[in-house]
């Protein structure tokens, strides 16, 4: 009798062991450098959301690094379910490697960019050099800090924003535009390889008079060393659209398509948009951005990369930053 009980117990416990616990789903988000705090907050909100929706837990693994480097790691086999990068061209590179389906950018609203940002000037307290607009960057004696557009996604926006200003100032005369951009880069004291390196050069090492920075990074620098810097928003700038998408090949392999889709869709929800705003990214929802009007200059005129002036990332990349492109020529002359 007791033997039977024991046997039954044994079988029961075996069953208990072998019945798999509800599998913990895992999602890998490969992102670029300055989004860590944004996604840290967002992931918590999403975990709660997923719990309400599916009654299941989800673990989110984050990866941060330079945008192009992160894109390369995905191409080389880093199995990201979603990528949330700085530039559409980096995601296009993954698409060209055959991992993301064509037409990804129209799958989600607003060019697949749930939040945007722009380029602003970070200057020293009191703005001693009176740097107010792009033209001031070319003035003699102004020390400019920007990362290298060849190695930093953010720096490409800096360069293009300057180009846009000069285009209007010099009435599309490309010789004059190039001369202006060259003058700005002649004023560049240190050409760091990444945005964070530049911020460090400006903030910790006290180099230069103005740092060309992402709006959200500029606010982080203010928080890092309060009372030492000011943000100057130039009258015109560029609309930086950091896009997000699913990596089709990997979600199919990992069976996470539904989870990944919901993860990105939730970025567009009111809650997701407010989290972006709270981390100094401009929410794409025109109603929600108004809630953050105290620190976003909403009157700013923003040119986009798809403006005929640039003709989209592919064209701009080749013309300006490719091997032997305008940026190379600036330094070769």
């Amino acid at each position: 009798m007791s033997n039977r009980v024991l046997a039954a117990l044994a079988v029961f416990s075996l069953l208990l062991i072998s019945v798999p616990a509800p599998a913990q789903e895992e999602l890998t988000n490969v992102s670029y450098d300055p989004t860590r705090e944004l996604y840290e907050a967002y992931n918590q909100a999403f975990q709660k959301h997923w719990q309400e929706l599916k009654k299941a837990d989800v673990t989110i693994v984050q990866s941060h690094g330079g945008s192009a480097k992160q894109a390369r790691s995905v191409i080389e086999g880093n199995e990201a379910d979603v990528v949330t990068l700085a530039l559409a061209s980096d995601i296009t590179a993954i698409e060209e490697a055959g991992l993301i389906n064509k037409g990804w950018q129209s799958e989600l609203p607003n060019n697949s960019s749930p939040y945007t940002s722009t380029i602003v000037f970070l200057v020293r307290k009191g703005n001693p050099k009176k740097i107010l607009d792009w033209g001031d960057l070319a003035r003699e004696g102004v020390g400019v800090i920007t990362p290298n557009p060849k190695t930093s996604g953010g720096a490409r926006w800096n360069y293009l924003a300057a180009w846009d200003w000069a285009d209007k100032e010099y009435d599309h005369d490309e010789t004059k535009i190039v001369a202006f951009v060259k003058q700005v880069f002649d004023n560049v004291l240190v050409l760091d390889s990444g945005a964070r390196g530049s911020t460090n050069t400006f903030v910790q090492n006290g180099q230069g008079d103005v740092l060309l920075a992402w709006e959200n990074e500029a606010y982080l620098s203010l928080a890092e060393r309060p009372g030492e810097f000011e943000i100057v928003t130039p009258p015109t700038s560029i609309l930086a659209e950091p896009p997000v998408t699913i990596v089709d090949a990997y979600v199919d392999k990992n069976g996470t398509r539904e989870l990944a889709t919901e993860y990105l869709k939730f970025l567009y929800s009111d809650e997701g948009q407010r989290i972006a705003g709270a981390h100094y990214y401009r929410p794409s929802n025109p109603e929600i951005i108004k809630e953050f009007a105290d620190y976003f200059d909403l009157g700013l005129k923003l040119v986009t990369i798809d403006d005929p002036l640039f003709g989209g990332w592919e064209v701009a990349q080749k013309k300006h930053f490719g091997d032997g492109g305008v940026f190379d020529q600036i330094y070769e002359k």
Partner: protein
Amino acid sequence: MTTDAAETTAEGLVTPPAGVPGGSGESGGAAEEVKNILSEAERNFLSGRTGRGTETGSPTGAGRADSEAADAGARADGEDGGTGGTDGTTPRRGRRGHRQENPLIRGTLIAVSLVFAALMLVLPLLAVLSQAFGAGWDNFVRSVTDTFTVKALKLTLLTSLVAVTANTLFGLTAAWALTRYRFRGQGLLVTLIDLPFAVSPIIAGLIFILTYGRLGWAAPFLEAHDLKIVFATPGIIMATVFVTIPFVAREIIPVLAARGTDEEQAAVLMGAGFFRTFFQVTLPHIRWALVYSVILCSARAMGEFGAVSVVSGHLRGKTNTLPLHIEILFNEHHYREAFAVSAILVITSIVILTARSLVEWVSKKEEEPGVR
């Protein structure tokens, strides 16, 4: 193998990379004797130094006394020769008994190296520590006990442990093979072992990506067997191994080459097997070189950033080693935290190195009575 082969390889042989002092010049049966003298002299030299700190009446001086005294006059001669005069040798004998060279030179050299070390080592160290503790002790503790920091630390320790163990075994085997036998292509093999030093860390990471990554030729095989190397722990370990391959081999080869093979041959002729010969005859002689190299190797393995950064994928809590975690903290505008975590690496290495220094000191002290 022909004699011809033996000759060619003799030329290309290692050529005791880090220099084979004196001994290599000696030959025949005398070599053994010379070595004994040398090692004894070395120990005497060390004990003499210890005694020197307390100037006269050092307890260790005894064994050395006569030679010291005998040399002293000559030494004084030598110095005077350097400065021009040769007079008054005898009166100086007593006073200069413990000195071997011009104190001015000694002082200058110490001063120069202290200034150099201060500029190149101490100041950077202070810079790191001042940044690390700049925001106070609480901030430091919070940074180093963060969950992700602890996870990164564990991964770093695991990676270093595996890489250092593998490279130590390899270094010993390679050093044995390269110094105990002559064969064709010896020079090439040494160069291959050296190669990782000459490879940029970026490339060191890239080559593993291009081999085992999705674009690599090994990808279909790995995919079929559901093996993951890059962007996972194995890749991180492999990159670390690659970067630190030469350390142990490099340090052991010259020492073994300098010792010659006489003792091993004798042991083998007396009937000892491979392992017994190695552990009882060879190992004791290379003990310190081994300790040095393992520490050097560990320091480099723990601190390696470039190569690992390429193969890691930076997955937080999964494939982030300590150096990568530091970079991430820095990029996230957590400047102080980044330096606080760097301080872990710095303090660990200093503790290990000081410990080594002490162990060395204590054990050499213990050896001394036996010598005398």
